[in-house]
């Protein structure tokens, strides 16, 4: 087994593009669920909105890339508005039904034959991110090494921009949550009626929260497609939403840095397990394939089995997350 290779992969994954994108989407989800108590089960829909916002405006409308970037913010905010209007006056579970349904519908619509001229259908949209890479100070095709980390020049550029944005957005969320505005959100999370009785328009605040978190999710989707240089409908599968949920709960719901910590831990673990399994000696591998059907395909599926099991067990035993405060957890049990 090539442990050097496994560790190189694992280290690179720790702060790699996936962690960056998922952590950002998790920051948005944290605004929704962690601070406001909104059950958004369709974060991937906001990511798709951000991604197609830029993809469609460049591919179909022929707009400038940067105008497309602006448009993708507007688009994810509008999506939040549309989903919020029918649901935010109702009990929490209605939002979850509508968001999961909408996120899957967005994927189906984007990949459909009818939308082919606009979204590129199943093939999606490519070659729209040129202006972004034109600004890169790094040679796009060259490998750069930093200690244990090793990335292509284009990835270094994406990561630099992405992580800067991630940290800026996280700091912005922190500032907001420390303000009276954030206090009101947390109050609504704890008890909406109490907040209303004290003169807070809960519906309005929930809508603001849904839009803010949705736009952050849209930014995550935007970064993802810029990094991949293509918009593919099927990358916005609902299971991504729950990967993000798992990351958030691992890091600790309603804590500022938890999305980054959770995404990094979760993704590092996944990459380590997958690469280790793939690098197993042939004999071991063959016997595993015989006994527990551990084919290449099934190694990929293992990731999702772990997401499911992780989410189930975390929600059951550590709903505040591995790093959640014990004190807050004790309050939940009351």
């Amino acid at each position: 087994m090539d442990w050097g290779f496994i560790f190189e992969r694992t280290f690179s994954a720790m702060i790699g593009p996936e962690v960056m994108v998922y952590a950002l989407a998790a920051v948005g989800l944290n605004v929704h669920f962690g601070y406001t108590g909104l059950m958004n089960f369709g974060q991937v829909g906001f990511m798709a909105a951000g991604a197609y916002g830029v993809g469609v405006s460049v591919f179909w409308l022929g707009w400038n890339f940067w105008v497309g970037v602006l448009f993708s913010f507007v688009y994810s905010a509008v999506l939040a508005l549309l989903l919020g209007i029918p649901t935010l006056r109702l009990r929490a579970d209605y939002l979850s039904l509508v968001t999961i349904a909408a996120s899957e519908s967005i994927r189906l619509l984007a990949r459909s034959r009818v939308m082919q001229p606009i979204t590129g259908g199943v093939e999606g949209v490519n070659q729209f991110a040129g202006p972004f890479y034109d600004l890169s100070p790094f040679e796009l095709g060259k490998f750069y090494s930093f200690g244990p980390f090793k990335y292509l020049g284009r990835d270094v550029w994406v990561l630099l921009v992405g992580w800067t944005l991630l940290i800026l957005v996280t700091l912005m969320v922190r500032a907001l949550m420390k303000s009276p505005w954030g206090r009101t959100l947390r109050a609504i999370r704890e008890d909406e009626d109490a907040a209303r009785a004290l003169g807070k328009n809960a519906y309005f605040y929930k809508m603001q929260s849904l839009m803010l978190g949705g736009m952050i999710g849209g930014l995550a989707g935007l970064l993802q497609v810029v990094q991949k240089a293509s918009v593919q409908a099927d990358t916005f599968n609902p299971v991504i939403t729950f990967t993000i949920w798992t990351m958030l709960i691992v890091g600790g719901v309603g804590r500022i840095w938890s999305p980054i910590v959770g995404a990094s831990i979760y993704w590092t673990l996944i990459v380590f397990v997958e690469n280790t399994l793939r690098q197993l000696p042939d004999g071991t591998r063959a016997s595993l394939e015989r006994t527990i059907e551990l084919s290449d395909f099934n190694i990929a599926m293992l990731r999702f089995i772990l997401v499911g099991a992780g989410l189930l067990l975390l929600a059951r035993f550590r709903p505040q997350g591995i790093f959640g405060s014990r004190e807050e957890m004790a309050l939940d049990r009351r």
Partner: protein
Amino acid sequence: MTADSAATDNAPVVTATNVVKTFGGLRAVDVEKLEIRRNKITALIGPNGAGKTTFFNLLTGFDQVDSGEITLDGQIITGRPPHQLAGMGMVRTFQLTKVLSKLSTIENMKLGALNQRGEKFWSALVPGSWTKQEREVEARADAILKRFNLTHMRDEYAGTMSGGQRKLLEMARALMTEPRVVMLDEPMAGVNPALAQSLLELIKALPAEGRTVIFVEHNMDVVQEISDWVVVMAEGRIIAEGTPAEIKSNKAVVDAYLGAHHGADLSQVELS
């Protein structure tokens, strides 16, 4: 807030006229006329299922009337959502306390202040625009906490409080909105006797600050001790009104409460 109503102390602060609310064919509330007198303590009593809490919900906008009209200081408020009513000076507490467990006591208090600049999204991003107001709010909150004897819990999670402390916090928090009308839904339920007395004193002090109190209560001793006026509900209707002394000897009230147990002194029974 209208000038004429504020001018006379005699004008009722809250009125309800022909207020009807039905649930599945059942008339939960059917109040022909009710006027709440300004700066007085009015008790709302009645047996279980009399519609007291539903009536409370209608007055505070948490539930909507089927028909009828409610006014606050002469202004029609029927159909207005609770947060607007709170902004107009009508605040309530809940039968089952709603403290915000994962916020500290002081945060619970600060939440109560109205018109905070920092509660607007864009201002929130610029701390300079709200920190001064926040300090004022905090000072006011600390003063009220002191009065309610909760200063020692200031920085604890509200979720760690005892039932009685929660009742106190909820009332203290309600006062942060600077209300003209304070509506307390069973303020004494589950409060131990030691705390109960101080809570009663706090309620009794409210009219002097220019606040009207309406409260739902089961304990007749409490009603007798602090209320200026008692309204009795049964099966959704108001069956009697009067001073505590009048109500105590009202036969209709005794009937509604006690059914067959005639002759018993009302203050001797713990009504539930």
